[in-house]
């Protein structure tokens, strides 16, 4: 499989990264280099092999579904670029 310019632009759009024509052209070569490199995985026989989901065999720690934290609205918005009365402000989404 190889990546063409249209694919690079589509993936950039999915990743929400604006790319110039020049960036996209450069990325075609770079991404193909990496894809070629990872392609060798297809030669591994994985018949009957389960995909890894957890690197250590352990049960996920669980806790009661109860509120343990909160009342930190000021802290949560403290680092946001634009806020108003503890809301994050974004460009208008709904007309």
């Amino acid at each position, binding site marked *: 499989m190889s990546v063409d310019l249209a694919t*690079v632009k589509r993936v950039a759009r999915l990743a929400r990264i604006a790319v110039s024509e020049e960036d996209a052209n450069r990325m075609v070569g770079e991404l193909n280099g990496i894809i070629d490199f990872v392609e060798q995985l297809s030669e591994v026989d994985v018949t009957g*092999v389960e995909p890894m989901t957890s690197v250590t065999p352990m049960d996920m720690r669980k806790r009661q579904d109860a509120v343990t934290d909160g009342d930190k609205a000021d802290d949560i918005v403290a680092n946001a670029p634009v806020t108003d009365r503890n809301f994050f402000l974004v460009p208008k989404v709904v007309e």
Partner: protein
Amino acid sequence: MTELTSLTIAEAREKLGTKEITAVELTKAYVDAIDAFNGTFNAYITTTPEKAMEMAKASDERRASGKVGALEGIPLGIKDLFATEGVHTQAASHILDGFKPKYESTVTQNLWDDGAVMLGKLNMDEFAMGSSNETSFYGPVINPWKAEGSNQQLVPGGSSGGSAAAVAAHLCAGATATDTGGSIRQPAAFTGTVGIKPTYGRCSRWGTVAFASSLDQAGPIARDVRDAAIMLKSMASVDKKDTTSVDLPIPDYEAALGQSVKGMKIGIPKEYRVDNMPEEIEALWQQGIAFLKDAGAEIVDITLPHTKYALPAYYIVAPAEASSNLARYDGVRYGLRVDGKDIADMYEKTRAAGFGTEVKRRIMIGTYVLSAGYYDAYYLQAQKVRTLIKRDFELAFHAGVDAILTPATPSSAFGIADENLAADPVAMYLNDIFTVTVNMAGLPGIAVPAGLDKKGLPLGLQLIGKPFEEETLFRTAYVIEQAAGKFTPAKWW
């Protein structure tokens, strides 16, 4: 009197304990050294001298009142990936511009609880993506080591390049670091320092900026094996805030030093003898084998047949997880925002301006391998191969091997702005060829300096252990250190 900054953590602990020195004096010595020399190395992104002096003063007061933590009064550098309350935390990225968290990471909190002093935040590859510390928004870090008779600036390795350089140049007593594919062990090897990536789950990931969540682990970079053992004991904890933090007691790692390796079985995997490996690396490996044999260990040849697939599998799994983790940087909740004509345009422009080239490249790869139609061929296949890589290690350990000895890196430190590496991302990725298997299998791995190459640059060996058997690694690495000695760069700065 010896320079205070030349003391190891263990030596400083001793002198602080006998009141020969104070935490204030020790910290001041580091603050002055950073003032004088950080410009040369670019190891720190932000320094916090006032906070450091306050913490040192408080430490001396605690000591006077009889309360002495395991790292009481020890000045440390913190990789910029760890959230530090009210202090610059940007993963060396432009996209987290101005971010000062309102919380403290578990690992750093553990250090402060044990009495340590923070000197500042250390440079790194952006979001820990890199093997040379050249992808940082804050510019490259310079390795304190130079080849004999050469003035060329070398990289300290990455991604924990600031941590490794600061430790080697004595700009901190020890440093925190993180390792996703080799980011502790490779820079440790390039700077003649000791770095350990513990077993996945040993150190809490809470409050550490995420790169690839199933691979990321924190660990120390230190001047010697003992210091690394002291630091890891404080960094590790059982943390309810991280569901992958493992519920096992933390041993006294330092107690393992000096224990005999007699009768231990050390595996030598033939697959780590890669094409074009410099003779010096092979010689170093043989030297390490001889050190352990002399100490009474039994050397056995082993096979880890899926080794060559670890790096390609890593370059699917890690970017896939990164593309998901880094989706949060959208110009809304923190960091940089670049305005656009609508919300999607704002996202795209913010991310285009905020992420560097290597980070964008990995997000793109990750997005591609997870996209409709490719998931099975790439991501699922890589996760299956990962199962096989882990199984290779399990079979070796099951056959009685206690630890595995390999080179840490395929070369010594290379030059800043190396043209061949800049032109070929995959060539740079090959730096992690010996270290990445360990992350894929969640195992502990330590890099310990074992010699110098012909150019006078440090080379490291890696020991790989069974899950949660870091003690075995410290014990064995200590034997290598005792035999090989320690390596300090000539002070040209």
